[in-house]
Structure formats: C-alpha cells, structure tokens
C-alpha cells in the first residue's frame, strides 16, 4: 500500500518526462521528416494510385484498373526499352566489376604514386556527365574522330568497316556500356579497396607457406574473401543500370531529347510517356514496373546479406 502511494507521483512525473522527451525527439525529426513525407512518401503512394488511372493532368480523371498494365504487355516500345535496359545491365555489371577489381588490386599494392593513380581513376566519376559525354561523342565520331582515325592508321581497316560507335544501331549499346564502365569504375574501385584492406593478411601468409603463387592466392584467398563486396557491388550496379537515363540522352539524343528504338531505356520511356504524351497514369504503370524490378533485386540483397552475415 505504502509503496503504491510512494510510486504514484514519481510514475506521473516519469510519464511527463517521457512525454516531454518524445516531444523533443519529434522536434528533432520534424524538419527532415516533413520534407521527406511531402516530397517522397506522398508521391510514392500517389504513384501506386496513379498507375490505375488515366489522366493527362487537365481533363477529368478516369479509373481504368489494371488496363495500364495490360497495355504494357502489348506495347512494343516499352518492351524494346525493357530489353535495351536489360542488355545494358548485363554488359555494365561484369565489365565494371572486372575493371574495378583489377584497378583496386593494382592500387592496393605498395607502389609509388598510388594516391595519384587513385585520384585519377576517380576523375571520370565526379566529372560532369554532359561534358564528358560530349567529348566521347567527338572522340568516337565514326569518320572524323581520333579513335577511328587511330584504328584506321594502325590496322589499315577502311572506315566503313570500323565500328560506328554511338552513331550506329549495332554499336550503340556497346558504346554506352564502355562509357559507363569508364565513368564509374573509380567509384566501385574504392569499395573494392576497402574490401581488400579488410582481408586478414595472415590468410595470404598461410597460402604462401602452402606454396601458393600469385594466381593461387588470388583465386583461393582474394576472390572468396571479397565475396560480400562483390555481392554488394553487383546489386548496386544492377539497380543503377535499371535507373539509367541521362547517359543515354547525352550520348545518343539530339536537340529534341528523343531516343530511337535502338537506344530507348525504361526511365526514358517513363519520362516520355509522362511529359511528352502527357499520359500520367500509363507512365506511372511503367514506373511501377521499375519499382518492382528494383524491389526484387533489393529483396535478393537482404536475403544474401543475411546469409553472408
């Protein structure tokens, strides 16, 4: 009884302190959360609703259910965009991983000028895309560009038989894959460097005692030890490749910002449907496809991370 009497006021006090603390905590979160809720959460929910509507922003809205999604299945342009995005992803992921890993291994060695080389390989990543894409287009220009002139001078192959790079249908995807790998390798190299520095040196010493050469050490220590890093890099590369837009526009589009069938990608299709055809509902249905694709990859990542610990 007496203990109850003693506790009651302190409980009340405690409750009031708790309430005050909660209020203080909310005041810390509010500035960010309000902006985040208004400009991210609400549009996100809105996107789901919008995908079931037909709306051009001006005329009355009509509810069309899953019609937008059914239309997607028959849309040749959309399927082409999806196809190009997948091909691009399939090219970018392995090429970037191989380049980034090779560079990281070289730059993890104790050599002179290491910091210089690290900085240099990061340059393309921070450089403005519009500027470097313009240079690439000039350098890879089929007849005038220095690349094909160089190839022509050294191999004697006539210009008509040399790759047309970004200007040709067949070479466009290869060109953009090379460009993307060139631009982003430095970023993933840094992630690999961190991974390499996390490997216990004793593992290499033990392998050496067993008589392993450099290749053996790479195969039986470096690669398995870097497995979590490679997994993470792969996931990031896939998601970033799905989201690609600006690279394609800057390498391939003219003044009207239009892409042809050979180079259209998913986000371009969303942009075009929404802002050129003013079909917000149909554009959102396409956006939901992107969302689901990224969600699947993210779920794979969660499961993988759990397994890898």
């Amino acid at each position, binding site marked *: 009884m007496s203990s109850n009497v003693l506790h009651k006021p302190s409980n009340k006090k405690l409750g009031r302190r708790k309430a005050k603390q909660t209020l203080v905590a909310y005041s810390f979160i509010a500035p*960010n959360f309000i902006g*985040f809720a208004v400009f991210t959460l609400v549009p996100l929910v809105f996107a789901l609703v919008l995908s079931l509507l037909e709306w051009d922003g001006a005329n009355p809205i009509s509810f069309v259910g899953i019609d937008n999604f059914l239309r997607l299945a028959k849309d040749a342009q959309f399927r082409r965009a999806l196809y190009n995005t997948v091909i691009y992803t399939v090219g970018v992921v392995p090429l970037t991983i191989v380049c980034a890993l090779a560079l990281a291994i070289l730059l993890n060695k104790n050599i002179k000028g290491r910091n210089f080389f690290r*900085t240099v390989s990061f340059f393309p990543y921070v450089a403005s895309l519009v*500027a470097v894409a313009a240079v690439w287009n000039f350098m890879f220009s089929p007849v005038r560009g220095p690349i094909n002139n160089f190839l022509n001078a050294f191999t004697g192959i006539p210009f008509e038989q040399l790759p047309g790079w970004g200007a040709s249908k067949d070479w466009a995807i290869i060109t953009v894959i090379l460009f993307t790998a060139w631009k982003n390798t430095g970023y993933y190299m840094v992630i690999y460097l961190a991974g390499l520095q996390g490997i216990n040196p004793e593992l290499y010493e033990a392998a050496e005692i067993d008589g392993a050469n450099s290749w053996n050490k790479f195969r039986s220590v470096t690669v398995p030890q870097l497995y979590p890093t490679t997994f993470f890099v792969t996931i990031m590369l896939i998601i970033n490749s799905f989201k690609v837009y600006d690279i394609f526009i800057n390498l391939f589009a003219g*003044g009207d910002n239009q892409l042809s069938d050979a180079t259209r990608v998913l986000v371009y299709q969303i942009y075009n449907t929404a802002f050129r055809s003013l079909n917000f509902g149909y554009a959102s249905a396409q956006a939901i496809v*992107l969302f689901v694709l990224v969600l699947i990859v993210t779920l794979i990542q969660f499961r993988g991370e759990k397994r890898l610990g």
Partner: protein
Amino acid sequence: MVKQNRKGIAGRIFIYILLVILALIMLVPFAWMLSSSLKLNKDVFTFPMKWIPQSPRWQNYIDIWKKIPLGIFIFNTSKLSAIVTFLQLITSSFAAYAFAKLQFKGRNALFLGYIATIAVPWQTYMVPQFIMMSKMGLNNTHLAIICLQAFSAFGVFLMRQFYLGVPDELCEAARIDGLNEYGIWAKIMLPLSKPALSTLTIFTFVNTWNDFLGPQIYLTKIELKTIQIGLRMFIMQYSSEYGLIMAASVVALIPVLIIFLSLQKYFVQGVASVGIKG
C-alpha cells in the same frame, strides 16, 4: 634469391606499365577536351592530332560567355548546390540525433519508413511528384529542385550510423552538466561528426551539381537552368562549334573538380564506409 628479385622487378615494371595505360584511358578524354578547347573548329579533328595547339585560341574562353549565359548557369547551380547541401546537413544530422540518441514512442517505425524508401528509385515517383509540385506552383522555380533534393533518407541514415558510434556516456555527462538536447546536438554531436558531415557534404554537393533529370523536368526557362542542362542546350544549339563546346565543358568541370580535390579524403572514406555497411 637474385632470380626472385629480378622476377620482383619485372613484376613491378609490369604493374607500372599497366597503371600508366589505365591512367591514360582515364585521362585522355580530359586532355583531348582541354586541347580542343584551345583550337579553331577546323583544327579539332585533324589527324594525326596536335595535343598542344600551335597558337592556342584563348578567344574560345571569352566567346562562350557571350554565346550562352554561362555565368547565370554556374550561379544557379552553385546556389542550388549550396542551399541543398546546407539543408541536407542540418535536417539530417538533427533527425539522426533523435534516431540515435533519444528514446521515444514510434522511433523504430519511423526509422523503418526511412530505410524502406532508401532503395526506392526516385524515378518511380518523379511523375506524381511533378504533378504535386506543379499544383503547389513550384514548376519552373528553384524551390522545386531544393525540395526534391534536400530531404533524403540517405543523409539521415548516414548520420545516424555515425552517431551510433558516439558513446552514450558523453551525452549523459552533458545532460548532468545541464545541457538540453539541442545544446548536446550543437555543442557535442556536430563538432564530433565532422568526418560524416564532410562525406555527406561532398555526396550531396556533387549529386546536386551533376543532377540532370530533375532540372530537365522542372527548369525550362533559360534563366533558371543549371550548368548541366544549360551546357546540353548549348551543345545542341551550336553542335558544330567544337572548340566552344569543349571550352564550355572545361568550365563546367572545374568547380566540381576543385570541390573533389579539396575534400577527396572524405569522399573516398565515405564511399568505402557506405560500401562496407551496405
């Protein structure tokens, strides 16, 4: 012993040759850009090319300012990048402090909301976001870009990770000394979190500076454009002015390269830590 040494030296030379080739691949486009920016249009594509033009045409760097409002583009981009970065740092570290150091109802649920959206690409909700912003009258305003960039879940996540590493005892001691929570944030947490703040600064600044699709959607008036879409407009308009295009490209690269070179250490640390933690 001698044999092994010789093998070591040969290996070392091989590594250096490989590195030089890779560095060349990384740098040649920039060198070509710089070289062409000092040439007449007719000399840009001569082959074999001259890396150093006989009479450098500095005039290109004067002409570009007259052909396009490059100064306005750079001002707009700097303004946007600075405001977005400032808001991002303040609101993220503020929110992160609550998530890392305060006990309150709904903390986990709110944080889960943040985490869940980190993986959602902005492109999935850019259309409804545009509709909303237009209804708010924000189309063709810089405020639209600021609202779009300044409140990311990523910033809160990054800062929270850092604050979790700060011992709770430090906050307790400060509370006993009479500091309130705002005081602890300002006097203890902020000064301690310089590395994380630097990482967030450079990520946000470079992202905003180089953003393309956001400004393309929202900023259609010339006087509002950022350097990226302004430069693209220029390239499309004067597509055969090779020397001028390259000069404008060099100008567009310089600010972000300066930021990168001066904050490089934090950038590399940031990429590495984000990479490790996932």
